[in-house]
C-alpha cells in the first residue's frame, strides 16, 4: 500500500509557498555577481556555487520528502524521473526531461528547456568559463547524497554558452548501504 508517486510536481508546486520569479532571479544574479567580485577567479566561483548548492540540497531533500509524498524509489530510473518531474517543478517552477540513458541505467541527462535562473543574464567575455547555474548541480548532488546515492554531475549544455538547452549529466557512482553506525567497543 505504498502511496502513489506523484507523476508531476504541479499539485505540490501549487500548494507550497512561492516567491516572485524576478526577485528570485535577481537575487541569484546578485549572489553570483558578489562571488565574482570576492573570489575573482571564475573557477573558484564555479566551485563555490557547487558547494552552496550542495549545502542547500542536503536540507532541501527533507522538505521535498515531507511535502511531495514521495516515499521510496525502486531504482535510479525512477529517482531521476522524480527529480525531473517533481523536484525541479516544485522548487524551480519548471520541469525537466530525462533522456540519454546509458545501457546500465546509471547515467542519464536532465534537460531543462527553460530556466528561470538565467532570465536577463548574458555572460561577458571575461566570464566565459563561468557555470552560471552550477548551484543546480550542487543541489541535486547534495539531495541525492542524503538518500544514499553518490553521484557525479557535469554540465553538458549551457544556453549561456550558445547551446539550445541546459543539460545536466547525472552519473550514479554508488549506493551506500545502511550501516550500523556505532562501533562494538563503544
Amino acid at each position, binding site marked *: 500500500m505504498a502511496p502513489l508517486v506523484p507523476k508531476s510536481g504541479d499539485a505540490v508546486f501549487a500548494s507550497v509557498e512561492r516567491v516572485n520569479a524576478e526577485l528570485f532571479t535577481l537575487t541569484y544574479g546578485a549572489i553570483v555577481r558578489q562571488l565574482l567580485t570576492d573570489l575573482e577567479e571564475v573557477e573558484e566561483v564555479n566551485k563555490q556555487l557547487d558547494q552552496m548548492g550542495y549545502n542547500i540540497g542536503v536540507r532541501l531533500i*527533507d*522538505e521535498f520528502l515531507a511535502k511531495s509524498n514521495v516515499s521510496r524509489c525502486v531504482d535510479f530510473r525512477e529517482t531521476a524521473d522524480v527529480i525531473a518531474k517533481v523536484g525541479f517543478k516544485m522548487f524551480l517552477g519548471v520541469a525537466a526531461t530525462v533522456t540519454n540513458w546509458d545501457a546500465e541505467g546509471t547515467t542519464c541527462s536532465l534537460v531543462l528547456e527553460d530556466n528561470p535562473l538565467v532570465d536577463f543574464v548574458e555572460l561577458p567575455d571575461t566570464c566565459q568559463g563561468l557555470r552560471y547555474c552550477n548551484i543546480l548541480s550542487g543541489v541535486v548532488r547534495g539531495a541525492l547524497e542524503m538518500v*544514499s546515492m553518490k553521484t557525479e554531475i557535469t554540465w553538458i549544455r549551457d544556453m549561456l554558452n550558445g547551446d539550445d538547452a541546459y543539460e545536466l549529466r547525472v552519473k550514479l557512482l554508488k549506493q*551506500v548501504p545502511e550501516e550500523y553506525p556505532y562501533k562494538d567497543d563503544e
Partner: protein
Amino acid sequence: MQFFGGSATTEASLLPAAPPGTGAGGPGNNAHMLYIFNRAGVCLLYREWNRPLRTLNQQQDHKLMFGLLFSLRSFTAKIDPTVVEKGNLGVPLLPGQGCSFYSFKTNTYQLNFMETPSGIKLILITHPKTGDQREPLKYIYNLYVEYVVKNPLYVPGTPIQLILPVYHITSYSSSNF
C-alpha cells in the same frame, strides 16, 4: 505487529489502566517519549513526558533504541514472505530496499516508528490504546522541516538545541496524544 497476541478481550484485560485523569484514547498525556534520530545514529531530539522507570543513562538508552530499530527493520525485511530476493540477515540493506514496520505494541506501550528516505527516524512511544500514529508522525516530520531544516542556524547532523522547534514539536506532541 504485536508481541503479546491474543483476542481483543484478553488483550484489554492485560493492559494497565491508563494514567489517572488522562483516559486512553482521549486527548491528554498518552505520549511517553519521543526520539528523533538521523542516519548516523545521532539523537537529534529526545523528550519524555511520562517515564517513571529509567535503567540506563541517556546515551546508552539512545543507543539501545537505535539498535532495536535497526535490527528490527532488518529482521522484518528478512521475514517478509512476499519478496523473493532478500539479503542475508545482518547484511546492510540499501535504503529503500526491503519492507519496514511502522509500529509495534506490547501490553504496556506502543512504539510508533517512521523513517524517511533521507534517514531521519521518528519514534513516538505512546499508551497501547492510542491508534495509528503515522499521520501525526508525518506532521512532526513537517514541523522538523519547517523549524529545524529551514533554520540557517541549525548545523545538519547535530542535536537540536534551538528553542522554537523543540517548543513546537513537544507542544504538538503533548497536546495531541
